[in-house]
């Protein structure tokens, strides 16, 4: 049986700067110059005020685990070999939130409110994924 390959991100044109930055091991998000909101995931226009005057800024990469789970069972997929792995909601210092994985630690040591920082994992020649590890 051939190994199932992990799915790769679908890159919309307006989200390309995010993935390009990730390849350079930088975590970026959008900021609305009209209403000063920070925005994630990438949008064409600000979801609060609909302005398209958005700029990309680099995140501190620091945040905390809001909630999480440890995946210990999965249907046949490319992720079975990774189990157990942690899926978490990470709230960044800049007030935005990402769904990501907590890596570089015992999965069962993760708790809510744990401080974490971004770390980059190369998926293939094209993509690098931002993940998080305990500080």
């Amino acid at each position, binding site marked *: 049986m051939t190994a199932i390959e992990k799915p790769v991100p679908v890159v*919309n044109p307006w989200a390309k700067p995010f993935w390009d930055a990730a390849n350079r091991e930088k975590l970026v998000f959008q900021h609305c110059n009209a209403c000063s909101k920070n925005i994630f*995931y990438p949008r064409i226009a600000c979801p609060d005020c609909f302005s398209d005057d958005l700029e990309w800024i680099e995140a501190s990469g620091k945040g905390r685990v809001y*909630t999480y*789970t*440890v995946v*210990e*069972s999965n249907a046949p997929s490319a992720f079975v070999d990774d189990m*157990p792995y942690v899926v978490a909601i990470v709230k960044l210092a800049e007030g935005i939130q990402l*769904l990501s*994985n907590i890596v570089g630690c015992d999965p069962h040591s993760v708790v809510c409110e744990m401080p974490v920082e971004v770390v980059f994992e190369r998926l293939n020649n094209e993509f690098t994924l931002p993940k998080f590890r305990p500080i």
Partner: protein
Amino acid sequence: MKGIKDKVAIIGMGCTKFGENWDMSFDDLIIDAVYEAYEDAGIGPDDIDAVWMGSYWSNLPAPSQPLATTLKLDYKPVTRLENMCATASDALRNAVYGVASGACDIALAVGGEKLKDSGYSGLPTDDLAMGLVSTAPNTFRSRNFTAPSHFAMMATRYFERYGLSPEEGREMLAKIMVKNHRNGMLSPKAHFRMPISVELVLKAPMIAWPLGLFDCCGVSDGAAAAIVVRADMAKSFRPDPVRIKACQIAVGPSEGYLNPNHDWTMVKETWVAGQKAYEEAGIKDPRAEISMAEVHDCFSITEGVIYEDLVFSPRGGMREDIEAGTFELGGELPVNMDGGLKCFGHPIGATGLRMTYELYKQLQEKAGDRQVKNPEIGLSHNLGGTPGGCTISVNIIGH
């Protein structure tokens, strides 16, 4: 006045046995459920004016035509619909709206699903799900996320918010599923008719921390159906029709994983659909006025959070009510009398009508050993999707 309260009544229902029905096709299941409903109502296919049929994963793509052919509903208006795991509840809502509008007098709602031929347990993988709902944000919703893990993240946050240790939290949730199995043991058509104990739940293999195997419902094959008519006609079919009090659906904006304001200790869509249904049905004090409920216990934490979102329990109050036995069969507000998704089984596109089937039988005092004493009002809650992006149906029926 806005709303459909008391305009439509159910005069017949059917439900197959849920389970691994290897010897039955999707068509067989649908036929069994619908013909039980015909027999119950004392009518036949010729009497039906319009049909709404739901299925989610089965026979994709499943247009209306083969389903209409299966039931020999020649030249009738037949519509196939889906609304994820709330599909059958939405089939009922559409049929009720068809009758309430005056467009037809007698409508049939059907839901069915054939899942056990997939070759593995559980739902089709995330890759397939993402293919079906491929939208830009999904790339940012994590690809290595399983269905149980979406719900597990509610449990970890709930424990954190209300200061429960993992052991205390897991034991609290285990009691919900022990109750549902105890009830489902009394349901001849249930899929998993076995007693379970708190100890068994806690020692079961972990699926997505903190949810173990028995915190998760399985999937099943099955179908269920309802025949609805104008309320003023109902008593000409049977002496004990059941009236529709409210049919509400709330569909969320599907960005809970990315919206920093999203609260993981509640499902906002449930709260909204519940409030709208209470308003439509004229219910002021849900805990006091609702006699019984069938709710979407896809995972133990889901049922717990539903108690709070439907205002059966105050925020943070699920533990006290679980300990007090409030939702047990003989309790103050019985929940999942037939065993729920956990014990009765979960054929995705049939589940909502299975819930209505139990409420309907209870209201007619035909629930056998599961009979709730003098029920007046029954509520069904059906969840499609996951916390952070879901469709919630709340239907209320009664005398």
